[in-house]
């Protein structure tokens, strides 16, 4: 999906987490994490914040507008 870039996979790997583990921490399915990483699905603000908190970072570090990258 255009417009939004994310570095979720890199942040997740940095924390040594699998997709399933991150999914469990954020209360979603592994498929949801997978589709976000592949830029197929854009998460809600709430889920973005939950992901950022689980990865000890900020939403801005994971997600960015394409024109800002």
């Amino acid at each position, binding site marked *: 999906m255009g417009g939004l870039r994310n570095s979720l996979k890199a942040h997740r790997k940095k924390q040594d987490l699998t997709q399933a583990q991150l*999914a469990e921490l954020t*209360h*979603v*399915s592994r*498929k*949801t994490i*997978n589709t976000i990483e592949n830029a197929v699905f854009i998460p*809600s603000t709430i889920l973005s914040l939950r992901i950022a908190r689980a990865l000890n970072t900020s939403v801005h570090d994971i997600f960015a507008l394409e024109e800002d990258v």
Partner: protein
Amino acid sequence: MNATTIATIRNGSFSLLGLVLLGYALAVLFVGRPDPMPPWVPGLAGALTALVVTLISRLNTRAAVSVAWDELTRSEWARSLRGGYWMAVWMYAAFGLALFNDIVTYPQAFAAMGTLTGAAPCLLFLRAWIKGRV
């Protein structure tokens, strides 16, 4: 039951319902009568699906159900419903033409359109499942 099992049962139930309804509609069109099989089949399939989906939601923990119905799934379900709506609208045009050209009768069109309208979102959800999105 974990979230994956709940999602699999739910997806399977919706898929099966979609296929039953599609099968009924195709039978209506190919057999050439509005009741090619007992007319309660689509209704019973729908009621059983509703029962299964409700039961797996009620009999499992709220946490597991919440993950099974997470925002990706809700988004895909909403997308399936939107697609189903437009398919239903286009069916009026398609069946209107078929009626105008005496390809189908009004009772056939009624039976086929009703079941296809129900089948469309379920089959679109099945497509999302096959694509690995739910």
